[in-house]
């Protein structure tokens, strides 16, 4: 067993900060890497050491294996934590880390290869007779190929990236005529996100819930699961709100899905933390979706309900320790919800919102956790993922958790970019979320541009502070002179 003393965190944003926290608590030194725009980002400020990647785009920085390994060597780390996204699910990266004599904090490279390609994962599952969603078991080659599959399983279908998750490269296709265009765009997105443009096709299941099981596996053959997370609130196939437990979960279903997840992990020779994703239909049949071979964005809800620090467990497993718990020691306690705070225009089809954060007052207080990768002064650019922070709450029960999240969302104050907070507020107040019946079609079915009128008092507040603001600034910039007809926003672009 080799004690890890120093970790390079091959990531940025909130997950780099979050990994640094656990490492520091364990007495482990941390090394940050940063692109040019990230020179003064929180992960650079917090880590013990920070080294430049000299570049701007992901490709020339956080995706550059060579640069990262050179820094790892220079800083004399003994392990690398990949976080999520970027290189976290690249078999080649895990191999290169091992070849450099360093510990990769994650599964073995071959496991990443096996499960990371969703087609080989589907083959493995089929071999073990675990139910999967109908579709291709190998990447599609061309449009003809795709058309044949689509016709055989019937529209609507889903196009998905074989090389990674997170909704990147995922597209729904309803008609044959859209197939060609959509495949092309999905390939482009997948290539940019994962450096891998292979895609595959799945039957689109009508009203499923997205429920996933967290597993932990050590190098001694022990595997446990930490219950489920429900992540059905998605826009653009990306999760926005997650919770644990799922409101539709029963003890029996949890045991069944948990056992299936553990069986899949065993079949794949899995080591470290991983997540097995399922679709669950309205009769509680569950279908395997994919395995995410890294820490998930939404892992905090599990941490808060089970009282376990998943990143610390990852590090302990990586240094050869046995799991500190058996399956019987693991008991859920209360209820947790996470909302992703992303720089997006909720009122404009979730388009990315860029800008500099001028004011930032995240929520605090009892039962509130905030994992952030941004702060006052942070410039949100078009180069990286729009997620700024995660707001997580824990309550004694689901009702208290929803009340707490509503309070925390109201309390959250940020200025300089638009965010998904209004959307999350909408979710917390929606009957389908409150009664727990929501599915992955929640957004499409329910979310409309807010038509809640501005209360009269708010109009008075804006008008009166406008007077003071423009007096204080001489004239308020960009607001004087003619009323232009050019700037009313529309759903996808603004017109003049």
């Amino acid at each position, binding site marked *: 067993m080799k004690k890890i003393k120093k970790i390079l965190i091959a990531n940025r944003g909130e997950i780099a900060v979050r990994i640094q926290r656990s490492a520091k608590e364990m007495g482990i030194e941390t090394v940050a890497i940063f692109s040019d725009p990230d020179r003064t980002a929180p992960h650079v400020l917090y880590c013990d050491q920070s080294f430049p990647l000299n570049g701007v785009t*992901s490709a020339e920085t956080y995706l550059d294996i060579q640069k990262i390994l050179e820094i790892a060597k220079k800083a004399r780390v003994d392990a690398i934590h990949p976080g999520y996204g970027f290189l976290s699910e690249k078999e080649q990266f895990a191999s290169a880390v091992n070849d450099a004599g360093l510990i990769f904090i994650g599964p073995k490279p071959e496991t990443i290869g096996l499960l990371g390609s969703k087609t080989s994962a589907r083959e493995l599952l089929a071999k073990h007779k675990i139910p999967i969603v109908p579709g291709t078991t190998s990447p599609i080659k061309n449009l003809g190929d795709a058309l044949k599959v689509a016709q055989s399983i019937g529209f609507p279908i889903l196009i998905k990236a074989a090389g990674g998750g997170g909704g990147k490269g995922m597209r729904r296709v309803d008609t044959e005529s859209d197939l060609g265009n959509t495949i092309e765009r999905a390939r*482009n997105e997948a290539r940019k996100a994962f450096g891998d443009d292979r895609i595959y096709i799945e039957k689109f299941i009508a009203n499923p819930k997205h429920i996933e099981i967290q597993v932990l596996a050590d190098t001694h053959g022990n595997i446990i699961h930490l219950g489920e997370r429900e992540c059905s609130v998605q826009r653009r196939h990306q999760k926005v709100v997650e919770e644990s437990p799922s409101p539709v979960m029963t003890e029996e279903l949890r045991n069944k899905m948990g056992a299936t997840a553990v069986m899949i992990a065993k079949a794949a020779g899995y080591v470290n933390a991983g997540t097995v994703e399922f679709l669950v239909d309205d009769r509680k049949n569950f279908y395997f979706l994919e395995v995410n071979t890294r820490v998930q964005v939404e892992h905090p809800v599990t941490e808060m309900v089970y009282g376990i620090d998943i990143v610390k467990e990852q590090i302990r497993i990586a240094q050869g320790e046995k799991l500190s718990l058996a399956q019987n020691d693991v008991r859920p306690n209360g209820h947790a919800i996470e909302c992703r705070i992303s720089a997006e225009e909720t009122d404009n089809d979730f388009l990315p919102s860029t800008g500099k954060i*001028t004011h930032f007052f995240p929520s605090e207080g009892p039962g509130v956790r905030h994992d952030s990768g941004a702060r006052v002064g942070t410039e949100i650019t078009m180069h*990286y993922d729009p997620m700024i922070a995660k707001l997580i709450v824990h309550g004694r029960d689901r009702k208290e958790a929803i009340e707490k999240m509503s309070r925390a969302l109201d309390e959250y104050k940020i200025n300089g970019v638009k965010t998904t907070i209004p959307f999350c507020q909408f979710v917390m107040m929606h009957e389908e979320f409150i009664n727990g019946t929501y599915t992955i079609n929640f957004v499409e079915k329910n979310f409309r541009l807010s038509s809640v009128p501005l209360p009269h008092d*708010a109009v008075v507040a804006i008008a*009166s502070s406008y007077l003071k603001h423009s007096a204080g600034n001489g004239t308020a910039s960009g607001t004087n002179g003619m009323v232009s007809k050019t700037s009313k926003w529309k759903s996808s*672009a603004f017109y003049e």
Partner: protein
Amino acid sequence: MSNIILHIADHRVAIEDREEGLSVDGKLHDVNIHKVTEGEYSILIEGKSYHLFFHTWNTCLHAVIDNRVFEIKRHSLRDQLAERFLKTADDHSKAVTFRAPMPGLVTKIIRQVDLQVHEGEGILVVEAMKMENEIKTSKSGIIKKIFVREKQAVEKGDPLFTIE
């Protein structure tokens, strides 16, 4: 300060800063305003507490209140006259230019100049933050001009195409 007209999102309000208090659409309000930091205000209206921020996006002033964002436009008598003139001019040419809603890279031009397009149809694709965003027209008509080409980087607000 004389009477001014503000457009706050869809609301049109006449405000006046009088000795006796703030008049909004002719009604007096007991308003207490304090600047908290630059661009940040605390407003008490008959006791009710509002916490408000200002931010300029794309050269337009916006107010951020309860995490909702509202555009603010000021409107003087001269503006009203000018607007009336522009409206008349506008009635003749109904061309609408669509602009980039965020900075990004144009990855694909889907429809070409002179084509007839319908409301909701995708005209081109802009990639930002790793997502491909299809930019749709909210107006049916003929594509008169496309201002960008594939692989071109655009800033927020840059013109993309004109529909007439």
